[in-house]
């Protein structure tokens, strides 16, 4: 009974502390100081984020049930940064009248889901992973239903919760099969047990595991909730869902696939994932082409982005892992920039369709500029960060050296053209199309503005500052052993 082991997971513990403080503030502070809750939370979280950047002790705790290493540390920091941006963006929104009674809950749920994601990232035991997964998904259903006045919010919540539970059922079934094969739920132990396994059962279990995590990542064909939930949920929640949740799932997915099922890489899951990636990128793109609602549009765009992220998984090497983390980081900034703009406009005008954005540049140059940066970054246009992340993830994938992966990358590259098309449609609406009744000049709140500036700077600088990617490669190189089975 060594409870000091909890110190090996400082980020999780710290997060719970933040949660507790917010919870206490929310519960015990008088009504009049409640309006300061967003600021309180944001500042608190900012401090927490800053502290987290202090390198932490590396090691595994609870007899290998959970592990902290440089990669998880970095990944959690990336998520923290994203979370911070989300909090900044949401501050103004949570002070709206209808949010008054559940402002505290909003923050509490966000922090708890983040905790769940941290568990997913660090877990080296499937039980812990499942708990993390559920913690990360169930409260989001509640968050999606926050805007009670909007019908879409309810529909989104319902769709999310049903598909999420179904998905977790499938995932658990898969885990049960894994358990049946390996007799243990510790990652490392499973890995040693399945070496040389070529059974159908393992393949089915793998398929179900991919489906379960693929649901969180919104990989095709497990993606269909994404668009509806993104569109229906409050924009702050959508933003959160689209980047933080996806980032955590991607990282843990890579860990599971590499560390647990590494032995089955070339025999099975490389090809399963191969098919999924092609489907994800293509179908996501095809759907995104036709969308007019920007949130829905970004949903499909994020589906196809998830496909690109998966290239880092199929790479199954440290370079691919670093590229994937880098991709997530860039994606955090790009997507949050887009959502920041959408949220700012939606909050004040309620408009979310592409056509509403016609002529935006004339009235709101900075918003348009930020949005354009986001679109270019998502589309992979240099010198913005998205270009670098795309390039690195392709390099990571191609490092496997197999011709099939080259073909896959080619398909992904061809798809970037389609994606560029629809990203440019947004740019076109803002810059090229003219509209006499364009959205009037808006005044964003401080939080929104700060978030946008952070995102814009991130988009511009992350690619140019090579130190980020370089250190990520060092972190992943330190845990190269998780790929030992590949």
């Amino acid at each position, binding site marked *: 009974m060594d409870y000091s082991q909890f110190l090996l997971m400082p980020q999780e513990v710290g997060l719970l502390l933040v949660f507790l403080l917010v919870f206490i503030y929310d519960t015990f502070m008088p009504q009049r100081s409640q309006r300061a809750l967003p600021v309180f939370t944001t500042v608190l979280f900012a401090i927490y984020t800053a502290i987290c950047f202090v390198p932490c002790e590396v090691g595994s705790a609870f007899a290998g049930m959970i592990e902290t290493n440089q990669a998880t540390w970095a990944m959690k920091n990336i998520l923290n940064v994203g979370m911070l941006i989300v909090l900044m963006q949401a501050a103004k929104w949570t002070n709206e009248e209808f949010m008054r009674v559940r402002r505290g809950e909003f923050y509490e749920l966000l922090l708890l889901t983040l905790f769940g994601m941290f568990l997913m990232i660090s877990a080296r035991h499937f039980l812990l992973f499942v708990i993390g997964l559920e913690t990360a998904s169930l409260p989001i259903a509640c968050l999606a239903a926050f805007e009670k006045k909007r019908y879409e919010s309810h529909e989104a919540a319902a769709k999310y919760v049903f598909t999420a539970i179904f998905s977790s059922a499938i995932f658990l079934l898969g885990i049960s099969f894994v358990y049946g094969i390996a007799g243990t739920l510790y990652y490392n132990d499973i890995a040693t047990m399945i070496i040389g396994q070529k059974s159908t059962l393992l393949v089915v279990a793998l398929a179900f595991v991919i489906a379960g995590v693929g649901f969180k990542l919104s990989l095709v064909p497990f993606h269909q909730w994404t668009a509806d939930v993104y569109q229906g949920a409050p924009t702050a929640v959508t933003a959160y869902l689209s980047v933080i949740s996806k980032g955590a799932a991607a990282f843990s997915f890579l860990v599971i696939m590499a560390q647990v099922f590494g032995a089955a890489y070339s025999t099975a899951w490389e090809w399963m994932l191969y098919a999924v990636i092609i489907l994800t990128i293509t179908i996501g793109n095809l759907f995104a082409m036709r969308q007019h609602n920007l949130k829905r549009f970004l949903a499909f765009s994020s589906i196809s982005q998830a496909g690109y992220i998966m290239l880092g998984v199929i790479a199954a090497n440290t370079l691919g892992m670093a590229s994937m983390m880098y991709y997530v980081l860039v994606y955090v900034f790009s997507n949050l920039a887009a959502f920041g703009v959408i949220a700012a406009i939606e909050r004040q005008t309620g408009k979310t369709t592409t056509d509403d954005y016609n002529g935006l540049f004339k009235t709101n140059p900075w918003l348009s500029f930020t949005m354009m940066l986001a679109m270019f970054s998502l589309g992979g246009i240099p*010198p913005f960060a998205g270009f670098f992340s795309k390039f690195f993830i392709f*390099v990571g994938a191609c490092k496997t050296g197999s011709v099939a992966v080259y073909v896959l990358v080619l398909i992904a590259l061809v798809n970037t053209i389609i994606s560029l098309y629809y990203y440019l449609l947004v740019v*076109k609406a803002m810059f090229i199309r003219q509209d006499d009744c364009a959205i009037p000049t808006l005044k964003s709140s401080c939080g929104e503005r700060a978030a946008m500036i952070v995102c814009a700077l991130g988009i511009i600088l992350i690619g140019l500052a090579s130190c980020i990617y370089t250190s990520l490669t060092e972190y992943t190189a330190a845990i190269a052993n998780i790929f030992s089975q590949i």
Partner: protein
Amino acid sequence: MIFDNILIYFAIVPLLTLGGLALCNNKGIKAIRAVAVTGASVLVALALYLVKLFLDARGAGDTSEMILRSDYMWYAPLNIKLALGVDGVSVVMILLSAFIVLTGVFASWKINPLPKQFFLWFFLLSTGVFGFFISIDLFTMFMFYEVALIPMYLLIGIWGSGNKNYSAMKLTLMLMGGSAFLMLALIGIYFHSAADGNYTMNILEIAKNNAVPQSWQLYLFPMAFVGFGVLGAMFPFHTWSPDGHASAPTAVSMLHAGVLMKLGGYGCFRIAIYLMPYAANVIGPVFLTLTGISIVYGAFSACVQTDLKYINAYSSVSHCGMVLFAILMFNQTAMTGAVLQMLSHGLMTALFFALIGMIYGRTHTRDIREMGGMMQIMPYLGVGYVIAGLASLGLPGLSGFVAEMTIFFGSFEHPDMFHRVFTIAGASSIVITAVYILRVVGKLLFGAVQNEHHRELTDASWDERVATAVLIVCVAIIGCFPNFFVNIITDSFLPVVDALKNAM
């Protein structure tokens, strides 16, 4: 220190200009123009100084493949460096770009609306172009390449005319489609750049290692070639060019046809052929066929167009086809001719587009059937157009002639009958070129005035005169003193030709 190398300033100066423009007031058109002209002039001065440096270095017996070499590690995990260096080809391409940028600024003197934004994008594009020419690292080259492409979308979309949305989208998507293939090719090259696993992105090192396996070359070469070939308007990937040029604003057409399309040709030999000589030898004839078709096909298509810009765009297809055609001949003379043709086509097409833009700005039509007798109304522009036309159809004393002759004579050196036949077919384009150029000149400039309203139009203003005069002088200088340029260019092709020979 990175700033020690003069080359980096070719990327920094446009960026500084960008910054300066960003500080300008939206309404202060004077300040905006001043900043733009200053930036462009500094670039020209730098380019001229670079030529001097190059000549000095060569004169001093520096025979290294690239001069002004310096490497700055950027992404250490992938061994990506900001590797700078120029050889004769890059030097002249930089010179060309600088002049086109300068004249482009003058050609868009009265751009409206949003002059500030226009110049911002314009200089971003220039950054990409210069960056491409100064770097010899695959990654940075590719990055700058794409930086140069994307501003086109907004430049055409916002300031273009006609069916601009369609054209801008088509252009962007097709070019990016090409670069998608290119990116894969680069990655493929990267992972075979060294036999010992010390992969590198540096072109010189890759060429030296010569480690790309032949089987991979056969896959990667077509991708790289098509990737650049799309930008070089190679048949059948040229269709973005007519629409794109027709819709683009003047300066953008100039820059695009004048410089951007050159990135295609430059990349084709510097990356596709130089790094994968085996595949170039094997697959070259296939692309040679395509480019040969481009030459004749573009010229024939131009014969029936009625829109001035379409005529020019198809003519560009033909001329740029000649560039790739010559590059694929794999001998020094033809390749030198290709670069001369790039220079020539760059200047002459820029001149054409500038003049067309000026005429369009006055008549608001580009349909040659609706115009006539312009020579009487605007003699300056008319004479300019005739000169551009003569340069295009290869009048000695102007640049087109020397370029084409070097290409034809170089190509004819190829001992293979297949190449000879294509050379002759390509050479026949000089007649077709004459046909469509004279057709336009006859309809547009000569004859009776078609529209009486046109009689009230004015001739060129001073800024327009500057733009066209600079270009005409450049065209004439290349045409009259080709050996100056040939001497700069030709030795740069030795390594490529050697590589090709060794790979045979």
